[in-house]
């Protein structure tokens, strides 16, 4: 789908940076410029939302809500001095947090199963035809285990991990976005890594015990 979109966008737009593309869309209503912006960032934004809420349908809604706000507020709210993606990310993050607060519960993304579409989180991942079925299975298991453990992290820690991973955001920006000090943001990342390590160790121990029992 990304390729289909990108075919329509001329190379001229691909060479432009976000700032120029935003200016083209704001000043001239250049749809191709907006399309290129979407093409560049949609996967990161969608993955972040999806990993936080754990449901395709909800992620679709939040993603659409985010971009509807982006389109309507870009003329008034967005300040060209700042990074466009950081601004969009703030909208996506706020929409996601709003949803999670409404739900008042943490979502276990690894065990999440879309009842409406009968699909799991991993059914949505892109096909990788080049790797063998066994490798694919192992990879899926590893991803599944990782997502399960990330789903077990406290929301604040999960946010920092996802923002850093999907947006490669500096901790200063993560701190601004989550309204905490830079030290708190760094501390949350540190605790997230410590907790993940513990969860992986626990899982490894259980696997070894299971193997020993079978043996």
């Amino acid at each position, binding site marked *: 789908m990304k390729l289909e*979109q990108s075919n329509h966008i001329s190379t001229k737009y691909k060479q432009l940076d976000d700032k120029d593309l935003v200016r083209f869309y704001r000043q001239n209503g250049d*749809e191709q410029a907006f399309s290129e912006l979407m093409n560049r960032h949609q996967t990161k934004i969608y993955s972040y939302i999806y990993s936080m809420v754990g449901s395709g349908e909800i992620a*679709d809604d939040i993603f659409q809500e985010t971009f509807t706000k982006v389109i309507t507020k870009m003329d008034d709210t967005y300040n060209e001095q700042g990074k466009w993606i950081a601004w969009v990310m703030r909208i996506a993050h706020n929409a996601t947090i709003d949803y999670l607060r409404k739900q008042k519960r943490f979502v276990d993304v690894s065990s999440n199963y879309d009842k409406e579409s009968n699909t799991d989180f991993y059914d949505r991942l892109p096909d990788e035809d080049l790797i063998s079925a066994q490798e694919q299975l192992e990879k899926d298991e590893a991803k599944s285990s990782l997502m399960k453990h990330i789903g077990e992290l406290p929301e604040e820690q999960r946010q920092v991990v996802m923002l*850093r991973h999907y947006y490669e955001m500096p901790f200063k920006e993560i701190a601004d976005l989550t309204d905490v000090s830079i030290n708190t943001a*760094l*501390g949350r990342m*540190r605790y997230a890594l*410590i907790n993940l390590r513990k969860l992986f160790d626990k899982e490894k121990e259980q696997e070894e015990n299971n193997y020993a029992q079978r043996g």
Partner: protein
Amino acid sequence: MRNEDNDCIRYLMKEMDPSEELLMERAMMEDEDLLIEVESMRQTLQKLDRLPKVDPPKEVTDAIMEKASNHAAERRKAKKSFKPVYKYAVAATLALTITAGGTWLFVGTSGSDSQERTTVAASAQTQSQVQSSNASASLNFANSNAEEVSKSGGNKVEPWIDRNNIIRFEDQFVKGNNEFDALLKSSTKKLRLVNQPIIQGQHVKSIQLTGASN
């Protein structure tokens, strides 16, 4: 939390200055526990690279692009309709409208004022005409008598009606003037009630006297 606790993360995330990095590496060489902690975190971080990246469904991106196109079209339309030339035209039209409206309002108000004034004057005139027609006979009579008085007294008798519609002879009234007293007496004797007191088609609830025949 101490800042030093976060140094591992800052080092791993490459958020340190080159000088800080150098100090951190030196500290790791000296402190084995610190080295183990950093390496352990690095391994966990590497696992995060396996986090999946998911594309949004095509129908969602298509819907967003459609919204973006519509919004852009609306903006282009709005931009066209607010070209500077049109702005001036709109400003000129507004100025003209306000001026014309103001003038019309002013003329209308003053016209109605004068009209009102004319109406009031006319009604007052009509009223005074009616009253004067009622009183004219008595006045004429009084006048004629007054003329006699003036002839005798040397002053012309001119009765007048005050704002309460009362006939006044005050100017000529002099205490102890018997002629004048006789004139007043004879004139009031001749006054009688108006049988059908109608002013402008409306019945009047007051006693009206006249010297003329009804």
